[in-house]
């Protein structure tokens, strides 16, 4: 992410945009040096578990362990606790940033891979799902993505990484979009057709003029990462999950 920001600072056409990118790079330096979070929104804890089918977890239950890890991390690390219960009424803070959102997947092998994302709400709030008609096709998809980023404007804290989930079902597409954000910034999809779509969308999005923090410029997104799966004959699900410039991801393999 930092490398992508530095590269964008070279290519950004707006002087204010370049200054903003410079401040984000400076902020990253200060955060590292002074052991402070990059952004006060330390996110919802989103955890993807890739569980090898030959692994067997002993000594307790896995969800509890993940939850306990989040609790300790946010408490001991002086991270902001942002989770509230009763979301449509009392909205009382749970006090330790739990519960995490856990996505588990069974994969071949005997390892347990943990992918972690501290997902800020500014960008999450601007994420969208469209159940397009198959007739709308690629063009409809492109229009929807551009419109989503345009409407998100400054609110999602650009420069963004745009996660796209195409195909599957409504919830399947959104999960793909979120997982796409875990890809290395700027690494294209191995499928040439999808990679071409990613490149076209990135170019179009950067023509919107939104720029760093919405203050104008040519750097609205640093990357588009799309994941594609087969879908129903009647469907074309497209999910857009936006990641702000404060992209905080980690992975570990046990």
């Amino acid at each position, binding site marked *: 992410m930092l490398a992508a920001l530095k590269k964008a600072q070279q290519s950004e056409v*707006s002087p204010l945009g370049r200054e903003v990118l410079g401040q984000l790079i*400076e902020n990253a330096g200060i*955060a590292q040096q002074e052991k402070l*979070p990059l952004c006060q*929104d330390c996110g919802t804890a989103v955890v993807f578990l890739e569980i090898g089918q030959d692994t067997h977890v002993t000594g307790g239950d896995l969800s509890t362990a993940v939850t306990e890890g989040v609790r300790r991390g946010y408490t001991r690390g002086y991270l902001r606790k942002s989770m509230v219960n009763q979301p449509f009424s009392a909205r009382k*803070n749970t006090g330790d940033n739990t519960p995490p959102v856990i996505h588990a997947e069974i994969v071949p092998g005997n390892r347990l891979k943990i992918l972690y994302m501290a997902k800020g709400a500014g960008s999450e709030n601007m994420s969208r799902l469209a159940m397009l008609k198959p007739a709308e096709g690629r063009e409809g998809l492109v229009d929807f993505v551009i419109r989503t980023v345009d409407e998100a*404007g400054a609110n999602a804290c650009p420069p963004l990484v745009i996660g796209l989930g195409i195909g599957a079902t409504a919830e399947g597409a959104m999960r793909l979009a979120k997982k796409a954000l875990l890809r290395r910034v700027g690494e294209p999809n191995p499928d040439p057709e999808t990679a071409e779509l990613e490149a076209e969308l990135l170019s179009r999005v950067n023509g*919107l003029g939104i720029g760093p923090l*919405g203050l*104008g410029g040519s750097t609205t997104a640093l990357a588009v990462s799309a994941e594609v799966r087969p879908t129903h004959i009647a469907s074309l699900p497209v999910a857009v999950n936006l990641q702000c410039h404060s992209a905080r991801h980690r992975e570990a393999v046990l």
Partner: protein
Amino acid sequence: METQRISSPLEAEVIERLTVGTPVLISGVIYTARDAAHRRIVRSLDKGDKLPFDLKGQTIYYTGPSPAPPGRIIGSAGPTTSTRMDAYTPRLIAAGIRAMIGKGSRSPAVREAIKKNKSVYFVAIGGAGALLARSIKKVEVIAYEDLGTEAVRRLTVEDFPAIVANDIYDGDIFEQNKARYRREAR
């Protein structure tokens, strides 16, 4: 545009000379309030209850800082998305608030209230929480302590960097700069 050093609370004549895009360095007192605190302040205004601070002429900063590690007064403290406060802001401006600091654009109703009541909306760099915390010199929780990060804090700031985003002349930095850098699809 040349950077202007200004003091908070803001004098009316200072607000008059602030135009969209002007970088400012704010020193003085500002109050933190975000979603939950806004809800409570407006409820207090409705009921005529005591307010957490005298709103007249004051500046509100939309932030919910991360906890202060040992030896510090505050953690990261960058702006949150202002549009979530739009439902409450015209009411607060009518009650005396004169400046807001946040990130992202505002609703037409807020822009109208800013114009009508000679107020100003600044943006600070979203996500630059560690950098912005450096300008915060003193922190006192003054109300709604039960809200944790969302409690109202009185901050003393020195040279806090921001940019004028909406002025009394109906200017809007987002619309203006987006139009300037927009290009047609290739």
